[in-house]
């Protein structure tokens, strides 16, 4: 059965990256790892570091260098603080190894959360540390959903993770089940990803513990859409799936949790798809965390002249700049489209695709705009608008957001 949710847009194009393997990149010119307000560096600037050398602490989590090179200290770049390491060209082996020796049944929820913290496992979906999510969900969650849907139809990284790291994915899911006390884990992906389902089921056939969910090929898939499709539950504003006893996790976090605990190496790499028509070579990459966007552009043979890299989704993503953020799961190169807006014909398509059941065209006429608070800025309305009205921008402006 193919599950779906109200609203959403069907993509016109599918990814061409489904068959290309994830390529491992170990070096880059520099990395910038985000530093929170309370970040402290534990080693002096100028110290040579290896992969996995502890650099400092930020937001209650240790920060490890993801390349070998020289630590430059905490620097401010474009208004944000970063731990900066410049490369010295060598690949350099990982420094520390403390693999988990205990069996999964010996571990408590606290142990797993502590490991997730110690190994700096991040959840790109919420750009939160995984240990915080585990602590929040522990004892409260009955279900875990591993959301293997892509953020954009052109990306294929979650699919590749399911194919290449099915074993680790299932292992990570088991750890999460143990950590949260959930009863069942659901793998959700677009229905045409038959190979992904098959490769997961190869490792785990226990139907009591694992299930697969085939979702309609539709965007955007967020928490709301997942809850609506799988559990027919509507999230109220500011509600998270954990409030309904469901923990939604990206496959990347589950794999990172399992591999760090198995190998005793902190999470140093990120998995991303670099795709889209504006890039010369589309690739699935495993790159050091905090790699600069400039390096990614070079890895992909440069962009076409008027293209730029967009984070996560062409529908609602921002232009990527500086360093790869922890929330980015795909980079899509898109060319600028020149569209001239004409007047609204009230065709009603925007209302049809709105996953929040709003009437986006009201933005053009109505004064009472309390509903704009419900807008999740998914961009579906503007995508579908035949009159090319910049609905998303208008809604953002009315909400008093300053554009940058």
């Amino acid at each position, binding site marked *: 059965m193919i599950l779906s949710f*109200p609203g959403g*847009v069907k993509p*016109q194009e599918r990814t061409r990256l489904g068959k290309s393997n994830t390529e491992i990149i170990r070096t880059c010119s520099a990395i910038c790892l985000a530093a929170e307000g309370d970040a402290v560096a534990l080693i002096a600037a100028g110290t040579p570091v290896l992969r996995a050398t502890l650099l400092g602490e930020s937001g209650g989590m240790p920060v490890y260098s993801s390349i070998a090179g020289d630590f430059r200290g905490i620097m401010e770049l474009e208004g944000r603080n970063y731990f900066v390491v410049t490369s010295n060209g060598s690949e350099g082996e990982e420094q520390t190894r403390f693999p988990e020796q205990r069996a999964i049944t010996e571990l408590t929820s606290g142990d797993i959360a502590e490991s997730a913290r110690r190994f700096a496992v991040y959840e790109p979906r919420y750009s939160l540390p995984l240990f915080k999510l585990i602590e929040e969900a522990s004892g409260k969650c009955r279900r875990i959903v591993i959301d293997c849907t892509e953020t954009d139809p052109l990306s294929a990284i979650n699919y590749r993770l399911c194919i290449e790291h099915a074993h680790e994915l299932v292992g990570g899911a088991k750890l999460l089940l143990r950590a949260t006390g959930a009863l069942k884990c659901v793998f959700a992906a677009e229905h045409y990803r038959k190979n992904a389902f098959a490769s997961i089921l190869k490792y785990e056939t226990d139907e009591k513990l694992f299930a697969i969910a085939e979702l309609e090929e539709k965007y955007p898939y967020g928490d*709301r859409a997942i809850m609506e499709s799988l559990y027919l539950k*509507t*999230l*109220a*504003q500011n*509600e998270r799936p954990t409030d309904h006893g469901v923990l939604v996790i990206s496959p990347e976090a589950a794999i990172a949790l399992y591999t760090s605990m198995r190998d005793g190496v902190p999470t140093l790499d990120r998995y991303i798809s670099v795709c889209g028509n504006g890039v010369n070579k589309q690739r699935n990459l495993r790159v050091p965390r905090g790699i600069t966007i400039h390096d990614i552009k070079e890895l992909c043979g440069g962009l076409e002249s008027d293209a*730029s890299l*967009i984070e996560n*989704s*062409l*529908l*609602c*993503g*921002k*232009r990527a700049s500086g360093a790869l953020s922890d929330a980015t799961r795909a980079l*899509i190169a*898109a060319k*600028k*489209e020149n*569209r*001239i*807006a*004409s*007047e*609204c*014909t*009230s*065709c*009603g398509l925007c*209302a049809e695709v709105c*996953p*929040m*059941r*709003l*009437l986006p*065209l*009201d933005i*053009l*006429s*109505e004064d009472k705009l309390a*509903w704009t608070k*419900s807008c999740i800025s998914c*961009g579906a309305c*503007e*995508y*579908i*608008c*035949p*009159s*090319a009205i*910049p609905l*998303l*921008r208008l809604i953002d402006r009315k909400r008093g957001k300053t*554009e*940058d």
Partner: protein
Amino acid sequence: MAKQAFAPYVHTDITNTAKSTEWLIALLPMLIWSVYAFGARVITLCAISAVLSLALDFALRYFLYGMPIKTSIDIMTAVYGILCVFSMPVTVPLWIPMIASVFVVIAKNVRVFRGKRLFNPYIFPTALLYLCFNAKMTCFTRPFAYFSATSFSIDQRLIDGYRVISPLQYMADGSVYEDGVLAQLYGYASGNIGEIAVAAMLLSLLWLCIRKEADWKSSVAMLAPLLLLSLVFPSDDAESNYYAFSIILSGAIPFISVFAVNESNTVPITKNGRLIFAFACGVLIFLTRKIGNGFEWGYYIVLLMNIASPFIERFTKPAPLGSKKGK
């Protein structure tokens, strides 16, 4: 830094021009049948109305509103122009479509409430012309009596030679059209250029539904109450089902139920609102026919409902997901 672009960075290929083209294609079967039934004069009338509407609309948008050339040309105006001609008899002098195209452009560009058009752009001109030139607009001739395609106005004596009474006029007199329901369905009955071609109109509806430009549910929502009410309250001297079918096949009813209830800019935007709109049209048309004996009032009822549609829209507006009101 270059000028910042905003999400979304991708858009559908479905533009307004593409949508208008779907409508133009949808008009083809009706146009072909009308030319077959009424001759080449139909083409002249349609061409005058379409080209003039397009030109006037372009002038208005380009010179008065200062829009760029690309968006000033709106093919939908030509569709409205042709649809407007479809509810005229073939005998009208050529200045009638000229006047009609002016009204089309006015109705198309008058936006009052919430940016919506006040009146349906192809029903509004017809309704006005019925008021102003009733004699010219209700002068029906026998199908397959071809008139000159180029003469500016047709000699009244020539018209009188072929003049017949349309099914609708029969019913206004209290009797039922004799040539039968099937003649009305296939389009052999007399009447307005496009409105007689009911079978072709169904093809148009099919095309529009396939291309997701129209919703058959709206059409059914309008015809169903009309049909049921006519079955329950039949005319005194006619067989009830015969009467009911000839009601929904005559005059502007098929035309309204296919095109007017699917003109997105003058009907409510919500799906339920559209059904309510169509349903109300059906009921009101029946009531006026039964009580007021107004057999050409279909157009006015559509205009009335057009005014009401923003209010229907307000009542049928769904609550946002996750809000207190919505579930």
